[in-house]
């Protein structure tokens, strides 16, 4: 809950009533007889015969979700610790560049291509520069937020190799770190005028046992403009950690907690979802079961199935990593429902057993 809210506050986009100028026709794109952009026309080519990737692109959401068993233990430990801190150290939440973070490959970007270089301009006012003048990837470039990149053409596929990242960025919103030895490989394929696929792979033996990555589909944004989305307020003022919640916590007798133990089911995000509430060492724990939904569920961590501690804020209200939980009890004090309080509203899950 906190995470969603914060993210909404953080990203001061400028989306308002100036719709008119946003509807201008994009010049120089193929159109169908009725004047609509023809996104299935052949991909354009540059004078040198290579596909031209230039344009404003809107990429689908990306969630970087590596297999936890593929992570070195220090990476997994950090990821778990960051979950307990509501991911407040995420570079994006600190108004810092996201660098190679998988999620940054979603959203809006503009590509400019020349024979010697390609620039990728992100809507958060960061950019990448990809040398295509035939140079080799530097062995030891100065560590930077956006990395050092060289590109080459493999047939009609644009292959980008990047190195020289500092280790301040994450490769996934779930707090997955990398080392300065990170190598990133991207393969861009514009299959027609309106569609491009990116396949990206992270290689970093100091952090990941095996290379892993993600794929994202990009659509040309025709007859519109890209708007800035600039972080103006860092997460410094966030409450900070589950420990803080525990500090404000109240003590609830064990026999009261025991009345909440059970399985609660309902619908969330269009799909079934269950919460299994257990009691362990006097601490109420919740475990989410059900298919993952796009974008994850707020403060859910890398392993969705992980147990999340519920810290009592009152006899019936609990804080669980950014989501508020309220147990609805009958006159005997036995829970009948669990309400998960989310920024998009409360979701009621009925007790099954």
């Amino acid at each position, binding site marked *: 809950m906190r995470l969603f809210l914060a993210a909404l506050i953080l990203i001061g986009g400028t989306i308002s009533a100036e719709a008119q100028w946003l509807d201008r026709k994009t010049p120089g794109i193929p159109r169908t007889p009725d004047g609509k952009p023809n996104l299935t026309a052949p991909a354009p080519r540059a004078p040198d015969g290579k596909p031209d990737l230039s344009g404003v692109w809107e990429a689908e959401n990306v969630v970087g979700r590596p297999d936890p068993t593929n992570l070195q233990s220090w990476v997994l430990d950090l990821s778990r610790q960051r979950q307990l801190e509501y991911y407040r150290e995420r570079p994006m939440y600190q108004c810092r560049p996201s660098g190679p973070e998988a999620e940054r490959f979603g959203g809006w970007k503009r590509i400019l291509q020349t024979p010697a270089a390609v620039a990728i301009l992100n809507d958060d006012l960061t950019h990448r520069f990809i040398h295509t003048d035939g140079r080799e990837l530097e062995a030891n470039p100065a*560590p930077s937020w956006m990395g050092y990149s060289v590109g080459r053409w493999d047939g009609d596929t644009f292959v980008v190799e990047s190195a020289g990242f500092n280790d301040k960025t994450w490769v996934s919103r779930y707090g997955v770190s990398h080392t300065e030895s990170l190598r990133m490989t991207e393969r861009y394929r514009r299959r027609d005028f309106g569609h491009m696929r990116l396949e990206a792979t992270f290689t970093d033996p100091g952090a990941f046992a095996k290379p892993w990555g993600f794929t994202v589909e990009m659509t040309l944004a025709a007859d519109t403009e890209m708007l800035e989305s600039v972080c103006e307020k860092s997460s410094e003022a966030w409450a900070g950690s589950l420990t803080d919640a525990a500090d404000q916590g109240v003590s609830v007798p064990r026999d009261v907690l025991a009345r909440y133990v059970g399985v609660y089911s309902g619908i969330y995000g269009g799909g079934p979802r269950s919460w299994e509430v257990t009691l362990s060492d006097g601490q109420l724990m919740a475990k989410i079961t059900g298919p993952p939904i796009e974008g994850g569920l707020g403060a859910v961590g890398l392993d969705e199935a992980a147990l999340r501690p519920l810290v009592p804020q009152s006899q019936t209200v609990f804080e669980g990593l950014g989501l508020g939980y309220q147990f609805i009890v009958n006159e005997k004090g036995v829970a009948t429902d669990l309400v998960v309080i989310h920024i998009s509203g409360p979701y009621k899950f009925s007790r099954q057993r």
Partner: protein
Amino acid sequence: MRLLLAALVLLVGTSSGWAQWLDRPTPNIPRTSDGKPNLAAPAPRGADGHLDLTGIWSGPVPETRADPANAQPWVNDLVRQRQREYHKGRPLYNCLPSGPEADKAAAWKRILQTPTAITILNEDLTYRVIHMDGRELEASPAPSWMGYSVGRWEGDTLVVESNGFNEKTWLSRYGQSHTDALRVTERYRRSDVGHLRVEVIFTDPRAYAKPWGYAADLALAVDTEMLESICERTSDEWHGGPVAADTAVSVVPEVLARYVGVYHGMYGENKRTIEVSLSGDQLIAKVTGAAAIDGGEMRSLIPQTETVFDGAGIIYQFIVGDNGVATALDEIHISGPSRFPKQP
């Protein structure tokens, strides 16, 4: 002093021991017979015959000489207030984009030119896009940090018109504000391979009676690379208020009166005059002269001892004779003190 120091701390550049990769020869630039870049060779042209501005550029910070008399009173009020706050609110010090601020105009940047668009990539990772596809400047684009820009060629000069700026950015590091009606006109002229001159005019009638601007001379950076310079720490923790006032001491008016006068000397290579006057029981310094720190603004001098005063981040020390009358005024900078003798 504080400001300079803070700026040094704020901008965490990554310039250290990676010299080797930074020395790679830039491909495709003209060279003299001994292999050195020939910066005086004719400027390159694109396939369309227009000059090609592509390359890495940087230059000295341009002098912005905003005449306070040309600014609306609300602008001057803000400038004074921001000075008193050590310019803590400057977008750069808050890790926010500098937008059209003149003082960033000559910072390291990379220009990439295509026939239909030019992008300017700044070392702080912000960027601008200049549409070159023949479109008109929009009448009312959504306000943004970097503005909406269209360009056209007038002979060998690239003329860029921009609007659609939000009101959060400054036009200079001295805190000159602008409104969202700001229009910026830039004229870029690459005279040869190595040199690019940019003339910039700000037009904003709600803030300035007449258009004003500056020129920046940029040099091509060859056989090197541009490094990132990312703001990682905002000015949130700066004291931000009149530090001096918290620690001020009380100095009796008759002592202050002995400091009143005109002090004159050189600051760097430029003449500088500091006119000290007494307004009530408050000592005021008016600084004028070439490269004046604030274009002739008044600074309140807040006593820290009987002879040492804080003037909005700069320390002033009066040098007194045996009779307690000031003979000179020292302006104490991070670069050392400059002495300004009292004029008869």
